[in-house]
């Protein structure tokens, strides 16, 4: 060994010294394609990103795009599945959300990201039945070919994205859960999506921009 090796040694020792948990975790992630994308931080949108528009078939047979909503100030886009108990727990709340905010300029657009080949309950026909039974006041679209949800970065259902319409496009202002209690609506203490939309309506940016929630994973 000569002196030239010292910096190399120092570097190697330092690298091995970083938190082994994180280090090992990244090593493991490489085995899983989805997680690799996550760790590169390229999966889905961050706050401030411009969300893509889409053209997806609604349960009423018509094609729906964000661009159709000329008067909207923004959108509450929710990825939600027909089969998922967490989505089911939120159906009435999503309906109430649309009723509350559609007239204020923030309509709900629901997208089912599930592959119906995996969950038959998520077929277009079953979506139609559910929308009718529940009296959905918002479009309920099927993400045919599962092309849209990965762009948004939805991971579970239901997964909410609040978008603010700006000159540059529909800017992501909030990503996460609707509230802090899936099981019991009467025990809710935090209404993340409503707080975010209220802030945008008041000309402010939301204070809480990202939350997490247990939900059904989206299978490909």
């Amino acid at each position, binding site marked *: *060994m*000569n*002196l030239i090796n*010292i910096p190399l*040694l*120092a570097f190697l*020792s*330092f690298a091995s*010294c970083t*938190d*082994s*948990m994180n280090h*090992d*975790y990244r090593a*493991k*992630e490489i*085995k*899983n394609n*989805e*997680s690799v994308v*996550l*760790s590169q931080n390229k999966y889905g949108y961050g706050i401030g990103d411009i969300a893509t528009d889409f053209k997806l078939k609604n349960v009423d047979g018509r094609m729906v795009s964000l661009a159709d909503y000329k008067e909207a100030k923004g959108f509450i886009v929710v990825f939600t599945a027909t*089969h*998922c*108990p967490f989505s089911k*727990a939120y159906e009435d709340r999503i309906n109430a959300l649309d009723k509350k905010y559609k007239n204020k300029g923030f309509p709900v657009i629901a997208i089912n990201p599930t592959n119906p080949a*995996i*969950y038959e309950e998520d077929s277009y026909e079953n979506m139609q039945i559910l929308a009718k039974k529940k009296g959905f006041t918002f479009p309920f679209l099927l993400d045919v070919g599962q092309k849209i949800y990965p762009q948004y970065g939805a*991971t*579970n259902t239901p997964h909410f994205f609040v978008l603010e319409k700006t000159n540059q496009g529909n800017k992501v202002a909030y990503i*996460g*859960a609707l509230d*802090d*209690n*899936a*099981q*019991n609506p009467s*025990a809710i*203490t*935090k209404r993340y999506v409503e707080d975010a939309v209220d802030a945008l309506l008041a000309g402010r940016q939301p204070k809480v921009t990202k*939350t*997490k*929630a*247990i*939900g*059904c*994973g*989206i*299978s490909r």
Partner: protein
Amino acid sequence: MMKQVLYGILMVLLATGCSSKKDNKTSTKTTARENNRSSLKSPLRTLKEKGVAIAVYDFESFKPFLHQKNDTVYVINFWATWCKPCVKELPGFENINKKYNDGKVKVLLVSMDFPNKIKSQLIPFIKKKGLKSQIIVLDEPDANSWIDKIDENWSGAVPATLIYNKQKRFFYPKPFTYNELETEINKLIITKN
């Protein structure tokens, strides 16, 4: 001689720099863990139906399951009866539980089923499938308050699995095949020679 001294100084500096960094990051956790002395807490309540008892925990009482310090490898799987990929991978966890019954590996299946579905859905499912691994329910409605404490990179989607021993822990936000699962577990089994 000079080189050896340099190396010596370098190693000491690196070692101290390294340990102080770790201490800063984990000191509170370590203290809490030491106080726990790996002892598990009582569940909030236990529901019984058809001879099956299910213990229900909130996150606070569940937490010691995540930080046991002994020679066992802990395999903690987050699942639900309504989650198809979870149900599909369950036999793998059952096989591990059966094969490694010498105390080297402990499987814990943490169900995300809603508590009001325990008697009507979870217990009938357990009976139907004849599940033998330990199964508990985590009843912590404000998921945002605890998901990051399992792993910061977890979105909250199930299935997800945490595998750890007293030295290392790995988190897998994905379904497992049996072979993958066993391979990952074997990496953590502490062999005494």
